[in-house]
């Protein structure tokens, strides 16, 4: 990490211990920006941070390989109890798709969908059950689509 940051120059780096992160993250997460770490700490801290922003139902993720090969996924479970009932919250998978669009260079489309999604959640009118509302998955998605269309 020290070698790479020397090359990249302008970006500030810090190397606190994982325990300092976990405590600092809980007390004042705002002074962390980008975090890079080995596998196990990443597993623990990514779930910790997901807990801070609302849980795995709204957390996107991507796995990037060496040749630009990438897989984007939501990290929540398969929720067999609500599968096929049009009840699930699509936010995590949708935002992961937005990450994918950015990875592909389609920033315009990514920005539009992300803004529409955030606006729908911020508005609080059409929310799925896990976010405190009683809309169906398709209704939530339709609202996002409407906002995207209105943007054009």
């Amino acid at each position, binding site marked *: 990490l020290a070698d790479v940051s020397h090359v990249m120059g302008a970006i500030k780096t810090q190397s606190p211990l994982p325990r300092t992160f976990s*405590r600092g*993250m*809980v007390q004042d997460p705002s002074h962390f920006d980008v975090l890079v770490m080995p596998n196990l700490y990443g597993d623990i801290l990514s779930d*910790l941070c997901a*807990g801070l922003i609302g849980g795995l139902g709204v957390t996107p993720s991507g796995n990037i390989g060496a040749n630009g090969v990438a897989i984007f996924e939501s990290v929540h479970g398969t929720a067999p109890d609500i599968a096929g009932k049009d009840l699930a919250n699509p936010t995590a998978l949708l935002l992961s798709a937005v990450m994918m669009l950015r990875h592909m260079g389609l920033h315009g489309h990514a920005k539009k969908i992300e803004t529409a999604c955030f606006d729908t959640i911020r508005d609080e009118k059409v929310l799925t059950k896990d976010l405190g509302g009683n809309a169906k998955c398709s209704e939530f998605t339709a609202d996002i689509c409407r906002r995207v269309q209105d943007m054009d």
Partner: protein
Amino acid sequence: KHTTIIMATLTKVLKPILGSQLGNTAKHVVIYLSYFHDYHAHVICPLNVIHYVYLQPPPAKYGGRHTVALIPGDGIGPELLNHVRELFRFCCVPVDFEVVHVNSASTREDDINNAIMAIRRNGVALKGNIETNHTMPPNHKSRNNLLRTSLDLYANMMHCQSLPGVHTRHKNIDIIIIRENTEGEYSSLEHESVSGVVESLKIITRNNSLRIADYAFRLARDKGRRRVTAVHKANIMKLGDGLFLQCCKEVASGYPDIEFDSMIVDNTTMQLVSKPHQFDVMLMPNLYGNVVSNVCAGLVGGPGLVPGANYGRDYAVFETATRNTGKSIANRNIANPTAMLLASCLMLDHLKLHDYANMIRGAILTTMNETRLHTVDIGGQGTTSEVVQSIMRIIQSSGPLTTEI
């Protein structure tokens, strides 16, 4: 490994402890000293009443005064421990400190060996954190780690409680964290057989896992807690954490009155920051213990508030729970003395000086919750010495004989 002991010798030892219950029935009593249970004696009387007797070596006590090893450490350690001594002098606590300095910059192990010897001599210690410099060569071991493993302080206990006077997002948290303190990822066993490829050994043993699980369940029972949650990553580390989990389950079966469940460590941290009230007693190996205890310290208000204790079979060492050196705030009179002072109260409880412990603890909590004199780390503007003075004033006003402030 069990040993059957000759009756006459042991009834002499146990008679004052168990009183007249032994008496004439002595010849029917059979005692097993189990090495696994570390000096516990199971006494089976003819009336089928089982007594657990904890035979621990008495702490160093001469002329009614205890002697405790004191290791100032680095950063904020020395100043906080000076406040502890100041407070103890003020309250006339019958404890004398044997101060042992450990130079963290030295590569020689003489200092830390002296400290370990002092702790062996006295049985109890109060310490500040000794800095571990990352730039030292790999064979330079962490002094704190060396102390814990040499003295076999296998259980790290941290009781996280919300203080009503401290503003936090989640209120009324009451979690006990039991962390295995001697092995796991802290075994300091690493090698680089191929340049640029490092292998680290995480050691999990059946013996130590059973031991820490037993400690956790006994503590839960003694403190009337309902549930123990084991934290692990056995889905990935199937042999290591798998063994740990298996040992926890085995011990759990011997405590049917206490609920047992387990949770994977990543989910645990997520649950802690969103729904911390579901946890009661948490039990885990070394590294997860480090992370989880820091998360919990953050939940109740920060590193300046929570005391920690390290217990072994023969020794006990008390310190702040999150073991911070606090280099950046050292000697500026801004450090929060609460954690270290509460740790000294845990030490007084260990020495069975409960009256002094409760008096000091009460004054600290009054300062935190009623007077609300807070240091910078918890949003106030008080200095370390102002907080300590406030505690002394409260103790003086509540009556007992004290020296001058």
